[in-house]
């Protein structure tokens, strides 16, 4: 009977813990023993052939980290992390500097195929020339392969793993690393400074418009590993770059720690667009396992008329704790933050942004859409502040929350601080549930409830989706649908 089969399909669909990216890949890897001591840091630094100043920098961070306390102010709840029970280094064995894509472990390539990431250049070339994306893939905190390097180099753009950059462009790394997120910025950023293993480095020289989208895929594979990557993007005067970031991890019972740091620097007239689709493993339907995503992301609009735009779609992770921020230092600079945060099951999200207005005539815009379902908790926490000298600072903030079911929570905690009479701040927040009328309208047209909800939710988040590059927008829409499965009933 078809009806029965339909019911079975329906029930299968409703299963919360169906995580598309939940496979594990068996690849020989080179893993450091568990635990964190000075020796671990020396080992990481040695493995990566780092210059001495880098090791000193790391050790300094480690010493400071030992004196710091874990922050507890966020609205998230988790058992205390045992920082000695984590592998701080894990690298796929065969990846010691692949010369070309053919040197990459075929097993690894299959992983990326499963992830739907077009690593192979020919695949991309088969497509439309314009939609080219250069990819840097980071596997268990080690950058595996960066595509399109040659073409980018012709334009003068440097796009490589940060450990490569440390060897090839030490002056750039030394000049900018830690200037946006200082070593002691917060507990997790300090830990990252001590143990980060890789990440991406982008440098766009003066007046260059990066010819293609840059993209990094992060994947945690190895058991009990923490992933600590560090991304540094510098856009010189008049430069433009759009950078995409995607994250996945296999299904595991234990919680895994991800503590990344991202630093963006935009000089005069430069623009950086940073988009994230974060889909780390969120844990199963009982809240077991999943990634702890404790990330520090900050952009510095250092030059006049510079612009930094953050767009994020957060559907994964057991716990998300991140506040991509903009320091609007240059006159006439602009910061933007567009966010969709979807929580289901037992996920906990405490995310938002900070817009710090320091220069004259700076403006910022925040659009945040939170959707909570299941037993999840979803908090928007954001700060907008205008310094005394930030003449004509402008901000517009809109935070909307949507609740699906009565077991979840949606919270909004904005901090609005004006120290200047010419500042104009507007903040608006609403919380509501899916409109019965809209749902009824869809159901009456024969659209199943789950699909109807996904449709309505996609309408709710449309403003943010529009900010994503096209390839990501499609993926993000699908992800939101998947994340909300099981939220009905």
């Amino acid at each position, binding site marked *: 009977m078809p009806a029965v089969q339909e019911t079975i399909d329906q029930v299968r669909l409703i299963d919360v813990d169906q995580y598309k990216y939940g496979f594990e890949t068996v690849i020989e890897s080179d893993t450091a023993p568990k635990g964190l001591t000075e020796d671990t840091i020396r080992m990481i630094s040695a493995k990566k052939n780092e210059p001495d100043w880098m090791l000193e920098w790391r050790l300094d961070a480690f010493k400071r980290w030992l004196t710091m306390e874990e922050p507890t102010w966020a609205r998230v709840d988790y058992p205390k992390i045992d920082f000695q029970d984590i592998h701080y280094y894990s690298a796929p064995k065969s990846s010691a500097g692949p010369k070309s894509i053919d040197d990459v472990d075929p097993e690894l390539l299959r992983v990326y195929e499963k992830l739907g990431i077009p690593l192979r250049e020919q695949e991309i070339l088969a497509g439309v020339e314009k939609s080219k994306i250069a990819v840097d893939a980071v596997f268990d905190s080690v950058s595996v392969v960066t595509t399109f390097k040659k073409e980018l180099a012709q334009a003068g753009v440097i796009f490589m793993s940060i450990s490569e950059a440390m060897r090839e462009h030490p002056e750039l790394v030394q000049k900018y690393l830690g200037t946006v997120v200082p070593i002691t910025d917060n507990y997790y950023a300090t830990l990252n400074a001590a143990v980060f293993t890789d990440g991406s480095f982008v440098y766009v020289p003066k007046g260059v418009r990066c010819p293609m989208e840059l993209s990094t895929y992060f994947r945690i594979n190895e058991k009990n590993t923490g992933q600590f990557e560090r991304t540094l993007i510098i856009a010189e005067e008049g430069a433009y770059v759009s950078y995409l970031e995607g994250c996945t991890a296999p299904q595991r019972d234990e919680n895994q720690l991800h503590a990344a740091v991202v630093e963006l620097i935009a000089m005069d007239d430069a623009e950086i667009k940073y988009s994230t689709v974060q889909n780390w493993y969120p844990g199963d339907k009982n809240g077991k396992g999943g990634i702890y995503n404790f990330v520090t992301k900050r952009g510095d609009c250092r030059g006049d008329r510079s612009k930094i735009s953050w767009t994020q779609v957060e559907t994964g992770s057991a716990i998300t704790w991140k506040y991509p921020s903009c320091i609007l230092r240059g006159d006439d600079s602009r910061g933007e933050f567009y966010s969709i945060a979807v929580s289901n099951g037992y996920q906990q999200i405490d995310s938002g942004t900070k817009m710090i207005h320091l220069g004259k005539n700076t403006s910022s815009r925040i659009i945040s859409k939170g959707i909570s379902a299941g037993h999840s908790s979803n908090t928007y926490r954001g700060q907008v502040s205008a310094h*005394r000298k930030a003449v004509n600072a402008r901000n517009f903030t809109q935070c909307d*929350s949507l*609740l699906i079911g009565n077991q979840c929570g949606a919270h909004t905690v*904005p901090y609005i*601080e*004006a120290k200047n*009479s010419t500042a104009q701040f507007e*903040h608006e927040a*609403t919380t509501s*549930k899916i409109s019965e009328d809209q749902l009824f309208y869809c159901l009456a047209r024969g659209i199943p409830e789950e699909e109807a909800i996904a449709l309505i939710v996609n309408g709710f988040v449309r403003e943010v989706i529009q900010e994503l590059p096209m390839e990501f927008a499609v993926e993000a829409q699908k992800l939101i649908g998947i994340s909300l499965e099981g939220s009905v009933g």
Partner: protein
Amino acid sequence: MDMQTKPPRTAAEQAIQDSFAEMIGQLPGDAAVMVARDKLLSAIDDAGLPTRRIESWHYTDLRSLLRGVPSKPSGRAGRVDPLVWGSVVLPVVQGRSTDLTAPEGMRLTPFSKVLQSGEAARLLTERGSDDLIGQLNGAFVGDGYSFTVAADASMDKIIEIQSVQSGGQVHSRFQAAFEAGAKATVIERYLGDAAETGLSTSISTLELADGAEVTWIILQGRGGNDQHLAQLSARLGENSTLKVYVINAGGKLTRQELHVDVAGEGSHFDLRCVNLLAGDSHTDVTLTLGHSVPNTTSREIVRNVVLGRARGVFQGQIKVAQLAQKTDAQMSCNTLLLSDDGEFSAKPELEIFADDVICGHGATVIDIDHSHLFYLMARGITEKSARGLLVNGFVDELIDEIDNEVLVEALETLVEQWLADHG
């Protein structure tokens, strides 16, 4: 290794302990009350004055803001005319209440008598470890009033609690119970002496039984050197209505907390708050509003005018419990920041656990709209008057909502006077 070294007491922290030793002999209460006082005092000593690390005090760092704790009331103070002629005045002069005969429909006792009644110890508690006002007031409270408006009584006359202080420290408490169907308008009015330096704490506790309708107006007009820490907590019964108006127009350091539990189905809460801030004052209004049952509504509007080097804070938290379906809660906070040296920080918070709700908040910070100013000046109005008119319009809008015309006029005069003095 877990030992944490406690920072040394600040001058104010030390003065609190010293004052207690000095005043303990004169503080009213039975043995149980004294035990409760002791407990609260040591809670202050253990935690120290709150700093910005304590989330509920994020913008009001008392450890640095609370300067000096004066010992005893020093200056001279006396009753003044009520705001509205014919009101029932409950005077608290230099912290002392008067044993008055209650008007019809009301039962009234000075709080000092309540403290000796043998049942008061349970009233001297803290709301949480960050409740400095509860701790300080509980440890030191000397007098105030406890009154009950009888069931279905409709008080025609306004009840004016009049706290007049001239320097020194005063700690009072007002317990108000409104029985089922009771109707009343109460003014809680604070006056100070610009020539003296005073510290005051006050706690007002409002209990609204089913169907009660209460308008409660807080007028804070302490002197320019005074420090005023106040707390209002209210609980609403079924189908009751509470309208709270707060006008802050004085004091050097003011913290007004409002903790409201909309706990009866069909009940409604309104807050209209006007903060007139000038000089180098620091004024903090902190609201926590809980919707704990289905079908309740609330509307909060806060308007701030900031002049000089004044700093203002509004923290407003709306909490909707899982049970509280069909809650409709809206909050807005609008600030006119008229000085480059002034500051305003707002933290409107929503914490929502029920899905079938409509909740929202809005916050704006702006300067006077120049096109409005231009419009008025083009009609021959001087810039100063034009500004005055616009600011007046901005705050009078809230006061106009009160349905007692005489009272509206009295409050508008108060606002005009303030603008004339500071604008």
